[in-house]
């Protein structure tokens, strides 16, 4: 199982590790996965008044592919509108990181994490 | 005592330099090929490269190569799960095929050891599930028309298992052209190490694993792979070159000249270029082997696999050799066998024939 350079880079130098204040009305938090399944992702987005995601943070319990996938999506969502971010597909993540077939579920989880964070943000807005 | 002349290559060939070098490298790799860490991946790479080598030499294309603990295990794996009553086996198969199929219907051979295709076709009318016919015989070297047999078995809806342990590396073996469903190979007959073999399995064919647990070899053969042995097998397969029959033919000519009563079994059949099965009427095979051993020549009687007891050869008996089945030795040559060794052997054999052949046989004065 040889991993791509991009994947290894995201794993070794993860971007945007950390936490945002989950009580901030502009912050959406997604928590997906399960410890018993071996991966849990927490992805947070901070959305400004224009509806642009100006910051994103993650923490992930999981394998290298799960950590790299979540690191990658925090980079991707920054600067996007919430609607744009919602269109990120797991296949794009898997392709970018050249995930091996047994690790495709990590990209699915990352997509789920974005969606969950957006949903949480939207719930707070209504 | 000087080093005996080794003319028993069909029993086991000495390890060749390419295999030795590949193994020397592989022995320095610590990992288990199933481990995901760096050491494990290095071991796995060795196994997979050897798999590609064996596949390319055997013309196996997309078929699966399952590494086993030897040719006997490869045969056992191919046959596992088949009831003998559902099988047809040629009369001249190696014991590793013959024993597990004990009770199967037997396809007879002609006096040169070649399967009687008409008789096989008649047996196929009973719709057997499996037919086992070897590619080349270990005792006589006779080569079966496997491609033709594959056509017949396929038409009858049966599977064909082919034991190519003796043929591989000595003649060109092309799995696709042969058309067998499973093909057994061994490393130590071709300058690879003992303890490694392979079964080639056609993609569409299901085999029943003999050893379970661990999931190695795509679930078909559990157990940590013999990494160094497999590396040696791959290297030996790449290095094996089909041999010329010149030396063997020279040997047989010399022997025929020395003693007209000699029987070269399967002499009229297509044969492996290195094998000669020489019968000396009236002299037991055991006596011949021991006499030649004392004279400094390592040859064998029948197959070497049994417990050491020399019995009459089942193969020769099936060829209609009668009492001759207990009176033949196998001389098998290797790529490093020299003309001098063959000349010396021919002289020793002539002396043996003069001394031991029954009185009344016509023996020329000199060889």
């Amino acid at each position, binding site marked *: 199982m040889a991993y791509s350079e991009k994947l290894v880079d995201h794993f070794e130098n993860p971007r945007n590790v950390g936490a945002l204040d989950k009580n901030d009305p502009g912050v959406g938090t997604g928590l997906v996965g399960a410890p*018993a399944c071996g991966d849990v992702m927490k992805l947070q987005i901070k959305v400004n008044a224009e509806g642009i995601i100006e910051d994103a943070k993650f923490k992930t319990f999981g394998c290298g592919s799960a950590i790299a996938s979540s690191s990658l999506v925090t980079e991707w969502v920054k600067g996007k509108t919430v609607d744009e971010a919602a269109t990120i597909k797991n296949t794009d993540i898997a392709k970018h990181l050249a995930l091996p077939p047994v690790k495709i579920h990590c990209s699915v989880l990352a997509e789920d994490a974005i969606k969950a964070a957006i949903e949480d943000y939207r719930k707070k807005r209504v | 005592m000087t080093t005996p002349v080794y003319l028993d290559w069909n029993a*086991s060939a000495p390890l060749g330099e390419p295999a030795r070098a590949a193994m020397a490298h592989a022995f320095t790799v610590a990992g288990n090929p199933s481990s995901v860490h*760096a050491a494990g991946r290095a071991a796995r790479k060795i196994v997979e490269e050897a798999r590609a080598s064996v596949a390319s030499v055997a013309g196996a294309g997309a078929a699966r190569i399952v590494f086993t603990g030897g040719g*006997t295990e490869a045969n*056992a794996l191919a046959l596992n799960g088949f009831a003998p009553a559902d099988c047809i086996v040629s009369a001249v198969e190696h014991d590793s095929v013959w024993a597990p199929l004990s009770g199967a219907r037997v396809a007879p051979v002609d006096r040169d050891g070649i399967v009687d295709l008409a008789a096989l076709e008649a047996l196929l009318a009973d719709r057997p599930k499996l037919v086992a016919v070897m590619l080349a015989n270990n005792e006589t070297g006779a080569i079966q028309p496997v491609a033709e047999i594959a056509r017949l078995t396929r038409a009858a809806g049966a599977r064909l298992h082919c034991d190519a342990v003796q043929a591989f590396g000595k003649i060109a073996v092309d799995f696709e052209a042969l058309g067998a469903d499973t093909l057994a190979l061994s490393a130590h007959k071709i300058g690879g190490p*003992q303890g490694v073999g392979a079964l080639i399995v056609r993609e569409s064919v299901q085999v029943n694993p003999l050893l*379970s647990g661990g999931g190695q070899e795509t679930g078909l053969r559990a157990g940590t792979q*013999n990494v*160094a042995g497999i590396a040696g097998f791959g290297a030996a397969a790449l290095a094996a070159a089909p041999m010329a029959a010149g030396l063997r033919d020279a040997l047989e000519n010399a022997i025929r000249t020395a003693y007209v009563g000699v029987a070269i079994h399967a002499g009229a059949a297509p044969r492996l270029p290195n094998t000669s099965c020489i019968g000396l009427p009236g002299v037991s095979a055991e006596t011949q082997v021991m006499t030649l*051993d004392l004279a400094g020549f390592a040859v064998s009687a029948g197959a070497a696999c049994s417990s050491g007891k020399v019995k009459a050869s089942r193969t020769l008996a099936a060829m209609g050799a009668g009492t001759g089945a207990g009176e033949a030795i196998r001389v098998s040559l290797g790529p490093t066998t020299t003309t001098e060794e063959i000349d010396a052997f021919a002289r020793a054999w002539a002396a043996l024939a003069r001394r031991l052949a029954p009185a009344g046989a016509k023996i020329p004065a000199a060889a």
Partner: protein
Amino acid sequence: MSTATIKPPANDRANAPRRPVYLDYQATTPMDPRVLEAMMPYFTEKFGNPHSRNHEYGWEAEEGVEKARAQIAELIAADEREIVFTSGATESNNLAIAGVAHFYKDQRDHIVTLVTEHKCVLDTCRHLEQEGFKVTYLPVKPDGLVDLAELDRAITDRTVLVSIMAANNEIGVIQPLAQIGALCRAKGAFFHTDCAQAYGKIPLDVDAMKIDLMSISGHKIYGPKGIGALFVRRKPRVRLQALIHGGGQERGMRSGTLPTPLCVGLGRAAEIAKNEMATESARLLKLRERFLKTVNEKLPEVFLNGDLSNRLPGNLNLSFAYVEGEGLMMGIKDLCVSSGSACTSASLEPSYVLRALGVEEELAHTSLRIGFGRFTTEAEVDYAAERIVQAVSKLRSMSPLWEMAQEGIDIKSIQWAAH
């Protein structure tokens, strides 16, 4: 909280070995150069087929094989005629279990084994179940050891075989073989023990422990891969139906040309193990203590799986809570360790052995097997401990579960979506 980057101390970098540090001695071991040295002549000048009884090449090879057989037997106080060569412990286990079950199937049809046995034992038992045999898979106690009272109850007058490993491949715990043997003998069941991990590592005596069949591996004791052995007791005699038929080698129990150099290698490896077991065990115990001390001092919430006192001296299996094992392995790429066991590590399931101990799934996912062996140095142990401490600390700082635990949130109280 910002990204945590924990740099290794400078002196550690300087000491870093160039090749990855091999700490996976339960998966396989490097060959001892002395073993290779003993094997080499049998690859070249003594290359004969050991079954060729009629010439010198065959005799030389046979002599090598028979000497090895005696060396292998001596380590377990067996008779050399009780040693059958196989292609490895997997084949030995298959042969012992299926062989005994098939041979005695008209008399007895029940097998007892443990849920923590090696895959090849469990798979063989499953096959036998499909054929109509009954199999009892006994649970183990939280320390990984068999409950002898439960074993006693499980063995009936229908039980033909009890198969219990000596030492576990993942957690290294050593079962009470002598007590198990006594129970089996008293009830007329054969006792098979998979000693792939234990042979050559701990003292074993087939008579004192009343062992009837024992599986042995070459490549776990610094010998070659592709060779193993099965001890088959002669008095009282144990009979087997062969798996591989043919030339009738190994007294009909296992046909096929014996790989002389590999047999010789296993013999030599056994001899070295016999001579050096005591000193090697003491050394490995010290290394293990040293490693554990560093880790325990520097990391909270590290849990040892399996009993510590009844354990192979070179084995550790640790759960690093809140850090997923595969991710951890990637973080310590210059260490060769294993998450789960080597045979199954390609799969993403948590170890069934740890689950059997009652280790919860989330903790089972955080486990590493760390194996020390003959060529492990003190410097390597120190380096490995530091690297693991760094990687675990870094990954915990990135772990949402660690964060919750620090905040006092009970992870079990959260409604996790299964996926």
